């Protein structure tokens, strides 16, 4: 904010800052898990997949704690205006982050279930590009959050289209090779695609919640209420 606000309410203000920081940190943990998942998928690293699942426990814990903190701040500080938007958005953002973490775990679980995938180079490369793109988007969502960058929503929405395109490509590739890889794997891979797509969606949602925090309204046709096409 523009003018100095002395000591007044700085603790409350600080606790909002801290909440933001912790949320971004939680997001970073999830981001790391997403990246780990990608690596596990591409390199059939079951150990990494197990790491992902393990790491998610910590994420869940931190999530619960943070969610409780946000709730308690709402109960104790009676926020209004920007602060309230921030806190309400934060409960949503936390949810988005936590969900993203779960999606990574889902991928990892699929990999473990099948004890690794054997993929064609084409699919492999598609998967790699898609996963990296999704992780990248997620990372940019977190940046938008950390910077409270109200404009990021639109940029991310655009970037999300790229992920969607890659997912589309992946589906086509899977469909073409469904005979080769067997139905189960095909379904599994299409799920992975879907998970990554949704991680990207969550990232876009996060950015849009940031817009809400800053401006008080969602961007036109917000992604959060867009049909999950």
């Amino acid at each position, binding site marked *: 904010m523009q003018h100095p*606000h002395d000591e007044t309410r700085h603790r409350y203000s600080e606790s909002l800052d801290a909440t933001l920081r912790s949320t971004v940190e939680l997001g970073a943990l999830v981001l790391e898990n997403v990246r780990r998942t990608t690596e596990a998928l591409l390199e059939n690293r079951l150990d990494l997949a197990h790491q992902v699942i393990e790491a998610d426990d910590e994420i869940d814990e931190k999530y619960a704690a943070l969610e409780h903190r946000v709730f308690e701040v709402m109960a104790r500080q*009676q926020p*209004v*205006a920007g602060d309230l938007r921030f806190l309400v958005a934060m409960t949503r953002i936390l949810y988005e982050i936590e969900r993203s973490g779960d999606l990574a775990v889902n991928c990892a679980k699929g990999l473990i279930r099948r004890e690794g995938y054997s993929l064609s180079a084409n699919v492999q490369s598609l998967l790699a590009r898609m996963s990296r793109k999704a992780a990248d988007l997620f990372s940019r969502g977190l940046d938008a959050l950390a910077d409270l960058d*109200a404009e990021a929503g639109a940029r991310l929405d655009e970037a999300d289209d790229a992920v969607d395109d890659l997912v589309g490509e992946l589906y086509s590739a899977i469909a073409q090779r469904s005979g080769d890889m067997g139905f189960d794997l095909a379904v599994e891979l299409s799920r992975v695609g879907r998970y990554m797509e949704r991680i990207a969606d969550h990232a876009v949602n996060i950015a849009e919640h940031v817009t809400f925090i800053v401006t008080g309204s969602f961007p036109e046709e917000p992604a959060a209420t867009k049909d999950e096409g």
Partner: protein
Amino acid sequence: MTIPDPRPETRRFEVGHSASIGASKSAEPVFDIDDLSVTYGDFRAVEGITLDIQPSEITAFIGPSGCGKTTVLRCFNRMNDLIESASVEGSIRYHGVNLYGPRIDPVEVRRRMGMVFQKPNPFPKSIYDNIAFGPRVAGHKGNLDDLVEESLTRAALWDEVSGKLAEPALALSGGQQQRLCIARAIATSPDVVLMDEPCSALDPIATLKIEELMLELKKDYTIVIVTHNMQQAARVSDRTAFFTVDVRAEGVRTGRLVEFDDTGVIFTNPREQSTEDYITGRFG
């Protein structure tokens, strides 16, 4: 935490002495205040207030102490006349009539505007006589008993006092006294009720009762309320005017209107940074 201000730099400075008025409505206003300034002796307490009060709405005035909320409110029924040093500039139109016009009788003005004060101030008379006072001095012709009952009923006090109208008003609890004062204020059939921090002397329970009552009354009356309690403004008002006080270099403090808008907007997404700072508790 510092939420960045998304508004272009200029926006924030564009607000001159006349505040940004987001809530101007097109309906025929009850009060139309234009460029109002009030001076106590040499001391300009508020300056350049422009706002309108819409019928059957609750309009809340909030802002830091000394920003002139009370001063502005007391212009509405010319209570400031009682302070010798006070002088008023600008115009206050009430249903189109300039209240400070030459032929206006302040006594008549006050009969049309009920006023409720910070501390409950019933007369040390019976409950009945408290209500009947206004109509009596105004030379009321009709049935006083009915009027008393109606006023008390509207003020949600009839059930509690119907059996003891002859008892002294001072025997009532603080919250009941304040409702009695409201009943007294509406007994003269005003169309406006002005309230200056009506709950600041009450505990939370009585406060909420009065707030309920205000919401009930706004069906029939236009209400203007000054409050220190932002939560109260948020809870009860339809529109909120946020005043602030500018301290000039020489230490002169002058109140001005910063923002006037629907209460929902003020408390979820105010236009002005200083409003947001105030309502979220971040102020110098």
